[in-house]
């Protein structure tokens, strides 16, 4: 068995009076509309196979009606499949008895809902502690844990309030704290940030990423917003009409859309906000070792370039230009000869480096945290990736 924490195998879901009777048609490969017209049954999900690894954020994305909310409800069996298996740590969720299922929901998974799903008649603190209360944890220890998670999401003073007194963003923080409070390994998030306004949404995304850095949960995140998917996901699965059309890393999806449907989605994405420097940088063209001006000029000549990077081993020292080297008084390269050029980090978003790229005539050095030169970022490669993406994916 692989190291997948969750495996979904051959999952089908048909809604209607007698789903089993429709399955032969589904296996014949008839379309959703055909089946609806002929039998009155709705095909919710068809032939879903997924593997989700421990500790990753797995985003399932699709438009409304694509079956993503149906799919996420299969993981904790809020909805039962018509056919197929769902394995969590090798246990088939479908085989659990009612008693075991309750136990499984209490300890293995927790869930965050689009419209928060908070209990309006309980205080914020009691809402956060809800999962523990259900498990029968005693009052004082659950209040203490709930307080701790309330602090973690930045709502420490709000324990005594009722959910209706909080703003949407605050309510969803309560929802998140409630999900974290049970210490479940798997977090299901059903359009968790979709009901929030854009500013709060991006704040919540940051908070989720920050928490994930500390907690290393396995998160299944549902969204209809590709920008959000690209930002949060380690891997993304795209659903259309109940079927999986593409699965891959954000860069994969962005640069190599599997079909026209995904391509149409990707077209409107703000790539500058979705891609990092790493994905568009090219290997450094002209690395100059040593302190000799003549040797440096020669190297630039050979490479046919105006600019080069002075390095020591893999360490980045500075950027040199042909013009200042030609006017150098001696043969020794000293600090005054180095150009004042900003360096960029490989994991920076392209958006954040655009101003530096525009201000600098030559390519920007991409320098990692420990000072190594990883590559260079030229205006040309930036324009290429921000421009018409189809040219690149066709190449």
């Amino acid at each position, binding site marked *: 068995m692989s190291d997948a924490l969750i495996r979904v195998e051959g999952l089908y879901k048909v809604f209607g009076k007698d789903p089993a009777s429709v399955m032969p048609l589904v296996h014949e490969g008839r379309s959703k509309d055909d089946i609806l017209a002929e039998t009155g049954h709705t095909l919710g999900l068809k032939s879903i196979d997924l593997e989700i690894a421990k500790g990753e954020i797995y985003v399932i994305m699709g438009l409304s009606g694509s079956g993503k909310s149906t799919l996420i409800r299969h993981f*904790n069996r*809020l909805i039962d499949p018509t056919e197929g298996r769902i394995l969590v740590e090798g246990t088939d969720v479908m085989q659990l008895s009612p008693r075991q299922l*309750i*136990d*499984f*929901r*209490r*300890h293995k*998974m*927790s*869930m965050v*809902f*689009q*419209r*928060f*799903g*908070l*209990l*309006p*008649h*309980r205080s914020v603190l009691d809402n956060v502690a*809800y*999962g523990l209360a*259900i*498990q029968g944890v005693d009052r004082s220890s659950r209040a203490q844990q709930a307080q701790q998670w309330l602090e973690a999401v930045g709502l420490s003073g709000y324990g005594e*309030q*009722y*959910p*209706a*007194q909080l703003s949407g963003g605050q309510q969803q923080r309560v929802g998140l704290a*409630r999900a974290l409070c*049970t210490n479940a390994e798997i977090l*299901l998030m059903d359009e968790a940030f979709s009901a929030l306004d854009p500013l709060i949404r991006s704040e919540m995304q940051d908070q989720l990423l920050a928490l994930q850095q500390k907690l290393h949960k396995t998160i299944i995140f549902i969204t209809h917003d590709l920008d959000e998917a690209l930002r949060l996901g380690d891997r993304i699965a795209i659903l259309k009409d109940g079927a999986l059309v593409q699965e891959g890393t954000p860069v994969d999806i962005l640069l190599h859309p599997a079909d026209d449907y995904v391509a149409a989605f990707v077209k409107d994405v703000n790539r500058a906000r979705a891609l990092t420097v790493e994905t568009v940088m090219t290997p450094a063209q002209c690395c100059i070792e040593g302190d000799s001006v003549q040797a440096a000029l020669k190297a630039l000549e050979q490479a046919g370039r105006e600019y080069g990077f002075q390095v020591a081993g893999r360490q980045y020292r500075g950027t040199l230009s042909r013009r200042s080297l030609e006017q150098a008084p001696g043969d020794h390269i000293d600090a005054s000869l180095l150009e004042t050029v900003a360096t960029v980090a490989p994991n920076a978003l392209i958006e954040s480096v655009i101003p530096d790229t525009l201000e600098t005539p030559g390519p920007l050095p991409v320098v990692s945290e420990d000072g190594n030169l990883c590559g260079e970022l030229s205006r040309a490669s930036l324009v290429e990736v921000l421009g018409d993406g189809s040219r690149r994916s066709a190449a």
Partner: protein
Amino acid sequence: MADTSWLREFPQMDRMDLLEIRKTLDSAYREFSRSYGDSIESFFDPLLHFLVWFEQLLINSPWWAVILVVTALVYAATRSWKLSLSVVVSFLLIGYFGMWEDTMSTLSIITVCTLMSIVLGIPIGILMARSDRIRSFVTPVLDIMQTMPAFVYLIPVVMLLGIGKIPGLIAVVIYAIPPVIRLTNLGIRLVDPEVMEAATAYGASPMQRLFGVQLPLAMPTIMAGINQTIMMALAMVVIASMIGVKGLGQPVLKSITNQYFTLGLFNGLAIVALAIIFDRVSQAYARRTQRHSNGGRNV
């Protein structure tokens, strides 16, 4: 020429056959009440004892003690001085106009009827909310209970149990229970499905869902049902007095037969006063327990 009289007159069942049906049903029911009446009556004995004990308690306690206890209960439920004060004034007026004892009888039977309706009605409402099949069975029964003239179901109750408190109580409960059943069902069905889903997703058992989520969230609606039940029980008190239920209904009945306008009006007003008190108190209590829904700002 063929007989065409069926075109002009409704083709009615033969009179003899109709009489036969009535006779058979009547005698069957009479037979049933003769053989089981006693055991059914003894089944209700504990309830009768409680009812008598409660009525005697209200009548035999000193009037100021009753007013004190009732006012204390009203204040505990509503935290409103205005309401508590109007309760005191209404009771003083009722007593001053000589209707104290009848009012205590009515108060006791209304209290017991309301408790019975809640104890029976809420579980039925819960079952109705859980299963569409039960709902499709219970709804027409409730429709019949609410539209059938009250006098009609007094007949079998009296045939079975005779005249007295218990048949009166049964008649009042049959008349007054539908709102609490209907609104319990409605309240539970209106609970936000996402909140229910959240409870399920966190591993709440069916009982934890019922008592931790469904009932608390349905409570405003259920309280509205209880309020309606109390109002209907009060309205039924006059009719129930025809089969020997003591209380404010009997003077009203007497004034209809004897054309005592003022006696009828006074007792009618006493029933109205009780109704208003019950209504305001139950509504104020419901509002106070639902503080969270208006953000906990005003009480």
